[in-house]
Each structure stands twice: as structure tokens, then as C-alpha cells.
């Protein structure tokens, strides 16, 4: 077996590792508030065929349209038959796709570096965690990597196909999340910086040639067409196109006035380098950060591992630096927002690992370096298992952010149990009276109930005394008691750490429930 075949074998092993970490027990973690929001929005598209871009929430349309085939195969057009597994399979597949796409720039990064980067992508706790999370971020990273890969291939082949592919991926980025504008700006700046840094380079083949004008039109045309189609809901909602531009005003405001999502500049890097909360375990992806640092420095060294390309490596280095700075300087931060720049760290880490192996030609040294890196990867794998299968909804996990508590599932279980003995069953009336952010993810979990209403004020919810089930925020219980005529029993459930929900169960229903249990 030659070295190349062995490296491709290892690449397949990385894909297999990615599958193992991503595919199993996708329904174990309760749905996050944001996941439920996305799921309900998708449910409208699934059942009514209707999608309208909302420039204030939910981000772009790709997630919903790309979920459609998964849902059709798994459960047809019924929203209530949909499961967490089906929804989360979407980011899982795109998360694995990130690794597959990286093969397209193996001649930029070198095959050795691509294999190292594939393992790190497959196993990184952050990458795995958000590949199992039904939000846009993993798709955004997939399209970002696709855009870089297709553009890179264009510089090698200068064919209209790669120009169109590049346009497609950039268009899909735009149609996925508004924050793509940060990636666009930093990629453009990184392109110029990489070209500038190689201005006096002796090998002209290392610097990409300018695109043909016709290819530029193909690139722009494809990108614009893709985003127009998606934002206009395939021409059903032309206003969506305008809104996709107007949305930036809203998101610029949000980025500046982050409220309780405002975090310090070092938030992301600290989280990746070292985190420990309470008596929880220590989390660190420092291996990737250190290898990326080595890769970044190596990008400017004459010794390059394998068949790598100085322009490509420097582009990745500049992009990673600029995107990290941009995301860190924006006050609004949520942990999943780091993925678009963290993928840069991972690619550089792959390059750094390959560079370390090549520092010395002594076989023993190379084996020692590979072993040390393998140990580090193994350690990352253990963390990834903990983050995704043990601390999957535990606030001591740094990637768990405002997540729904596992205890919330007991509330869902109780509602389902009670509905089975209620004469109306799934038509049983349920009134939810909560603060807006305390209603979620109930709409997802109560999707099988036809008569569920959501209010924010007790006095707007109509008659309450005979309602079988009422879910309320804790701060509404005092007022609610005055409406209930002592006809309900009360239970508490945790929605998120520190936030409880009250469940009022109509007394007769409760008595029947207890009798049936006996």
C-alpha cells in the first residue's frame, strides 16, 4: 500500500468517525428554544407549502427547504409525525459534508494536512455538538467550505463549472444566514492579503490568475439566482428579496446592542482554550488552537508539507485571523456563531500537524509526532463523547447555551399521559400563558395537539376554571390562582436552568389519572 492510498484510507476513517459521533441518539437532547422555533417554522412549509422570509428572526431559507426531502422520506407531509431525529439529520449530513468537501482543496492544504483536518473536524466537540443541532450554523459552514473549495478549484482549472459552483455556494451562504456578510468581507480581505503577501513570490503558479469576465458573470449570475430563488420562496414572495437586504439593518443593530448575549472579546477563544463551570469537567480544544498557531506560522515558512500551496494556506490564515477578530469584536455572541471562523482554525491545525511531521526527516521523530497528535485527538474524542452523550444538556458544558433542561421532558410526558385519559385526547384544550421566551420549545412538543393556545397575559386567556391543562410562567401563578377557583392541582417543571414552568391540572382529570394508575 502506498502512502497516498493509506492517506485516503485514513480520510475514510475520519468520515466514519464523524458518522459515529453525529448519527446516534439524535433525539436524546431536548429541543433547544431556537431549534423548536426553526422546527415550527419548517412545519408551516411542510404542511402548508408556505415559507415567508422573516427579516427579524429565523435567518435564511436554506435550512427549511433542505429539510423538506428529509421530512418527506421520514414522515411525509405531517408535521406532527416529524421527529427530532429527522430534523437533526439535516445538520448531521451537512456536518459530514464539510469533511468531504475538504478533499477539493487537498492540493492547497496538502493531502496529509487534509486528513489531519478531517479528523479534527470529525471529532472536535464544538463541531460535533452543533452538527447535531437544528440551526443554520453547520449549513453555513458547509457552504463556506464549499465556496472556498469551488473557488480554489476554479483557480486551478478556470472552468465555467467551478465558477458556477463557486457562485452557487456563495449564494447558498447568503441564503443561509445574514452573518455570511462577515465571512464575505473577511474572505475578500484575506484574498487581497494573501495575494499581497506573495507579490514577490518566485513561483507564479502559486498565485491565482484573475477570472475571465464571462466566468465572473457565471459566478455572479449563479449566486444571485440561487439567493433570489430562495428568498423569494421560488417567486411566491418577491418581497423576501427586498427583505433579505433590509435584514442587515436589523442584524447590525442586534450585533451592537447585544443585551444578555453580550460577551467579552475573549469569549470564543477562552471557551475553546479552557472552560470549567462549577464542579463540571475541564473542556479544552487547545490542541486545535496550538496546531493552528503552528500552521499559521508555517504558512509563512519556506518548508511546506506535501503538495500544499502557499497562496491557499495564507488565504486560510488571513481569513481565520480576520474572521476571529470580527466575530470576537461583535458584542453579540452565542457559542455556535464561532463555527465559521473555527473551521479556519481546524484547517490550519491540519496544516500545522502536517508541518510538524515534516520538520524532521527522521522516521522515529515523525512517528512520535503522529503519536502525540493521535493522543490529543483521542482526548478530544473523549471530550466530544462527554459533550454530546453525557453533558448534552448540562450547563457545565460550554456549548450548552440556554438549553432546555432534561426535566422539561417530564412536563411533556405528563401532558401526554393526561391526554390519553382525557375524553378529547389530542383535542384536549391546553392553554399556555407565559413570557414569550418561556413558551418555547412547547410548540414543538405539543405539535400533536390540535387545541393549544399561547398567551402572554392571564387576563387575555379567557375562561380558565375548566381548562384541563394550563402551563404558565412562575411569575403569572399568583394572578392565575385567582382565576382557577381552586379547581386545579399544581406541578412544577424546569424549562431551563433557573426557570420553572407551572403545570395546572384540572382536579377531575387528575383524580381520574390517579385512579387509572392504581
Amino acid at each position, binding site marked *: 500500500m502506498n502512502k497516498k492510498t493509506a492517506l485516503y484510507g485514513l480520510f475514510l476513517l475520519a468520515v466514519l468517525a464523524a458518522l459515529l459521533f453525529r448519527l446516534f441518539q439524535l433525539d436524546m437532547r431536548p429541543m433547544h428554544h431556537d431549534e423548536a422555533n426553526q422546527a415550527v417554522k419548517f412545519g408551516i412549509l411542510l404542511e402548508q407549502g408556505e415559507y415567508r422570509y422573516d427579516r427579524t428572526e*429565523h435567518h435564511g431559507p436554506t435550512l427549511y427547504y433542505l429539510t423538506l426531502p428529509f421530512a418527506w422520506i421520514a414522515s411525509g407531509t405531517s408535521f406532527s409525525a416529524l421527529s427530532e431525529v429527522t430534523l437533526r439529520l439535516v445538520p448531521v449530513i451537512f456536518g459530514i459534508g464539510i469533511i468531504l468537501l475538504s478533499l477539493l482543496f487537498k492540493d492547497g492544504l496538502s493531502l496529509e494536512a487534509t486528513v489531519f483536518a478531517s479528523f479534527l473536524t470529525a471529532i472536535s466537540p464544538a463541531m460535533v455538538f452543533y452538527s447535531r443541532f437544528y440551526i443554520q450554523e453547520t449549513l453555513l459552514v458547509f457552504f463556506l467550505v464549499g465556496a472556498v473549495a469551488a473557488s480554489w478549484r476554479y483557480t486551478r482549472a478556470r472552468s465555467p463549472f467551478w465558477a458556477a459552483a463557486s457562485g452557487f455556494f456563495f449564494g447558498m451562504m447568503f441564503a443561509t444566514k445574514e452573518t455570511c456578510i462577515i465571512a464575505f468581507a473577511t474572505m475578500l480581505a484575506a484574498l487581497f492579503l494573501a495575494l499581497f503577501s506573495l507579490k514577490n513570490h518566485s513561483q507564479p503558479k502559486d498565485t491565482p490568475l484573475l477570472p475571465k469576465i464571462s466566468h465572473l458573470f457565471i459566478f455572479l449570475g449563479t449566486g444571485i439566482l440561487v439567493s433570489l430563488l430562495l428568498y423569494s420562496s421560488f417567486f411566491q414572495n418577491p418581497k423576501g428579496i427586498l427583505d433579505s437586504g433590509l435584514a442587515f439593518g436589523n442584524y447590525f443593530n442586534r450585533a451592537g446592542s447585544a443585551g444578555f448575549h453580550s460577551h467579552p472579546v475573549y469569549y470564543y477563544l477562552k471557551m475553546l482554550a479552557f472552560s470549567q*463551570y462549577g464542579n463540571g469537567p475541564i473542556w479544552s480544544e487547545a490542541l486545535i488552537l496550538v496546531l493552528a498557531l503552528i500552521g499559521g506560522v508555517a504558512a509563512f515558512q519556506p518548508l511546506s508539507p506535501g503538495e500544499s500551496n502557499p497562496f491557499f494556506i495564507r488565504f486560510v490564515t488571513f481569513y481565520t485571523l480576520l474572521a476571529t477578530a470580527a466575530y470576537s469584536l461583535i458584542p453579540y455572541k452565542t457559542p455556535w456563531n464561532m463555527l465559521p471562523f473555527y473551521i479556519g482554525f481546524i484547517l490550519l491545525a491540519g496544516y500545522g500537524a502536517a508541518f510538524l511531521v515534516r520538520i524532521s526527516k527522521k522516521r522515529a521523530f515523525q512517528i512520535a509526532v503522529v503519536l502525540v497528535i493521535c493522543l490529543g485527538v483521542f482526548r478530544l474524542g473523549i471530550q466530544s463523547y462527554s459533550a454530546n452523550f453525557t453533558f448534552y444538556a448540562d450547563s457545565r458544558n460550554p456549548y450548552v447555551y440556554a438549553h432546555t433542561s432534561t426535566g422539561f421532558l417530564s412536563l411533556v410526558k405528563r401532558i401526554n399521559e393526561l391526554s390519553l385519559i382525557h375524553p378529547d385526547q389530542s383535542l384536549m*384544550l391546553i392553554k399556555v400563558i407565559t413570557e414569550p421566551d*418561556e413558551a418555547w420549545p412547547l*410548540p414543538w412538543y405539543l405539535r400533536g395537539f390540535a387545541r393549544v393556545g399561547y398567551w402572554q397575559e392571564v387576563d387575555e386567556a379567557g375562561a380558565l376554571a375548566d381548562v384541563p391543562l394550563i402551563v404558565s410562567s412562575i*411569575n403569572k401563578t399568583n394572578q392565575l390562582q385567582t382565576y382557577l377557583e381552586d379547581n386545579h392541582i399544581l406541578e412544577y417543571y424546569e424549562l431551563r*436552568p433557573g426557570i420553572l414552568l407551572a403545570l395546572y391540572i384540572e382536579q377531575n382529570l387528575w383524580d381520574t389519572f390517579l385512579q387509572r394508575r392504581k
Partner: protein
Amino acid sequence: MIKKISLAVLFLSVSVFFVLGGVVDSQSTDQEKVVLELKLPKPMFVGTPRNIRSPNLEKITGKKRRPFYVPKGTELLSLDKPVTGSDTEPIIGELEFVTDGEKSGEEGYFVEFGPGVQYVQIDLEGSFHLHAILIWHYHSQARVYRDVVVQVSDDPDFITGVKTIFNNDHDNSSGLGVGKDKEYIEVNEGRLIDPRGITTRYVRLYSRGNTSNDMNHYVEVEVYGTPAR
């Protein structure tokens, strides 16, 4: 004869009328009864909620507890008294924490038992009339402990003479009987239970996990009373 026939016809007619009337009536009732179509408001889409990772020491709801009156001479009986439990090797902390007088909500002041039904038991080392029991399970975060049951007995094994003075296990999931007391949210002023002067030596407090996780915690338990004569 004609009279009899007339009466029979009349009876038959009335019967038919009522039967048919009943059928018609029931049909019309069925037709009139339809499921009330309610226009229920949809949930409002909102952005990512606040991430709470640090302990929340604020009180969640309710007012300050009103003054609680006890007989003159009532004193704290439980301070530094021996504590046993269903788990002799707690996951975190020591059994002694339960009666050491420290009520801080921070790390290092509570004892943690594993999942399932667990208890702590305080030996008052004598017979007393109990006038108040205060319990702090864990008050750094808004939580509700499941199936809180407080029992007293003069038997250290709680086999004979067991009396339940508080039980909020409303569905009997802990198997100690259905309780009528309400669940409550942990706050820093603790939960006050009125034992109504019951005479006993041992106090046992059960729980079965909480809204946040399956673990059982005790920061402090205070038992107040007067010596039994």
C-alpha cells in the same frame, strides 16, 4: 269497546309521539352539538433566550414569609445533632452539613445524594414537642424538589409509630402514600413546616430528585421545639 280502542290509540299515539319526539330531540341535540372552534393564538417567535449559568440567588416568586409563632421557650434542637441517611457515602459533601448551621447556597455547603428516593434522618437525642421544621434543599437556583415527605418517629428504623407531617408526593411516585401538600420552589429563606407540637425523637426527610436533575440535596435542616415532659 270503542272507548278502549280510543284509549289504546291515544296511548299508542302519545307513545309514538314521545318516542319519535325523543329521537328527533336527540337528533337535533346531536346536530346542535358541535365542537367549539376556538381561535387560539399561536406562539410568538422570539430569539435565543438568556443563558443562565451562574447561580441565581434572587427570590423567584411570593412574598416574605410572615412571622411564625411558637410557644415560649422553643429552641433550635437540631444543631450539630447526629445525621444518618439512605446513602452513607454521599456523592458530594458530608451528612454533618445537614445540621451544621451553615445555610449558604454556594458550593461546599450541601450534601448530595444520588437519584431515586433518598432521605436524611436527624436524631434529636431526646423526646421533644416540635413546633417548626425549616428545610433548605438547594437555593442557589429556582428548583422544586420532588416528593418531599417529612416523617417523625421514636423508632430509629421508622418501622413503628411513624407519623407523616408533610407530604407533597401527590402521585405517590415515592410509594409513601399520596400527599396533599403542595410542591414549592426553593428559596433562601427555606421551607417552613408546622409539626403542630408533635412529640418525637427522630425526624426523617425524604425527596426524589428535583426539577433540574435527579439528585437529592440538603443544605440544612432546622428542627425547633421544646422538651417533652
